[in-house]
């Protein structure tokens, strides 16, 4: 009887030790998010064109500090700032692009980097559809050359009295 009581006590102690540890482990796990944009900005303020403090590449991890949807307060390589919530996932097996795999950025061992619908599949598709070659080449140019830096967009927004530069709300 006495032994049973002692065993019961030991169980309680074990649970008391394990539960906070499990809680700490859960907190650690919840902080880890994987970037799914090619390059995701970490910004000073909760605004889409607020100054960029850092940029995390696809497949890299950021630490979640708190959620204020659609924004997330994150930490990345010692820099703390705001990131759009749709730039990241907490799914460790997310399918990343081949570029992420080629650059050595790999979120987890389970991550399906470079599989699924990838540039290799696109190359095969293009071989099978030679009539689309000119269109694909135009898209390559557009993606490479039609790039609008944050400063240019912000100036356009400012001059147009848009977003945070709007003189007053809608009536």
């Amino acid at each position, binding site marked *: 009887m006495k032994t049973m009581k002692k065993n019961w006590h030991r169980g309680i102690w074990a649970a008391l030790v394990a539960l906070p540890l499990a809680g700490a482990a859960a907190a650690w796990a919840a902080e880890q998010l994987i970037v799914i944009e090619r390059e995701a900005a970490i910004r000073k303020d909760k605004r889409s064109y607020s100054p960029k403090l850092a940029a995390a590449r*696809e497949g890299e991890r950021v630490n979640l500090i708190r959620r204020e949807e659609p924004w997330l307060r994150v930490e990345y390589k010692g820099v703390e700032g705001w990131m759009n919530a749709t730039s990241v996932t907490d799914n460790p097996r997310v399918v990343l692009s081949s570029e992420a795999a080629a650059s050595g950025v790999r979120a987890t061992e389970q991550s399906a980097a470079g599989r699924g619908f990838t540039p290799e599949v696109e190359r095969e598709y293009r071989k099978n559809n030679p009539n689309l070659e000119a269109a694909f080449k135009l898209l390559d140019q557009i993606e490479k050359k039609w790039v609008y830096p944050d400063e240019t967009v912000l100036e*356009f927004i400012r001059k147009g009295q848009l977003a945070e530069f709007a003189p007053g709300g809608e009536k």
Partner: protein
Amino acid sequence: MKTLRRKKTMFAIAAALAAAAGALASGLFFAPGCRLVESTADTLADATAGTAASGLFRGAARAAESFRDYSLAEEHYIGRAVAAQILSQFDNRIHPNQQLQSYVNLIGQAVLSAPEAQRTLTGYHFIVLEGDPVQAVSAPGGFVFVTEGAIRQAKDEDEIAALLAHEVAHVSLKHGIKAIKSETRKNSLALLAQSAGQIVVEAGKQSGSAQSQQLAELTAVFGDAIQDITGDLLVKGYSRDLEFEADKIAMVYLKSSGYARAALASYLKKIGALGTGGKGGWFETHPSPQERIAELGDLAAATNPGRDLRRGRYGKTLGG
């Protein structure tokens, strides 16, 4: 005796710690939200567990039960192929006026200052096509196409913003991706599971011919997905519900970015006045403008103090 008890206690603690670690490793503690490819991941995990053969079998079997979700990376490549099809239908006639292209792109990027809009792998691209038919269409991954005819119908910058916001909403809401038929999704999921299973379990033992076979199968399914999307986008058009949903979300983006929400209704009114007789384009793929204006409700009547100011640069670019 005392040593034995101590050992038992230590064992109990170790067991509890192991349980906690196990729960952590299994992902039990991952917080909800932001799950883009959960069903894929689960099936993939099943497929990669155990031997290659059983993994493949289970992966394929589970694929029959669940839909395939696509990551931003996959949406990007699907989107590029859909965009190539759209461009090809317009004989690759991208409008040569670079000033116009820049202006429309900057309006699109300004709309994207709305943080509610879904990010894509490499951002959004707004492309003006030559042609009079009033047409706007978007491909997954953020490729948005508008004809010069659609731009010319807008009386100011805010109406162009409304048109682009509607297309961004289609991308954000993944309407193109949702057009991929369940059969195609199942096939692509099974192939993804197969690919992962072979790579993880066989670790490089796969022969060159097996790899080419796998790539050929994946490309065939990719082709099916593109056909499913372009069929909806360019032939049938999205359902009325999806169009109304895109309008509703476009209003959110307009408000967040500071553009006039009333611009969507005023643009639709103008399009409605064109009538449907033999015009083609927009009218073939959307519910009637009158119905859409009615759905927008009172929000469409809001006034915006900066709208007049933006008319200046609109006139400068479009010569209005």
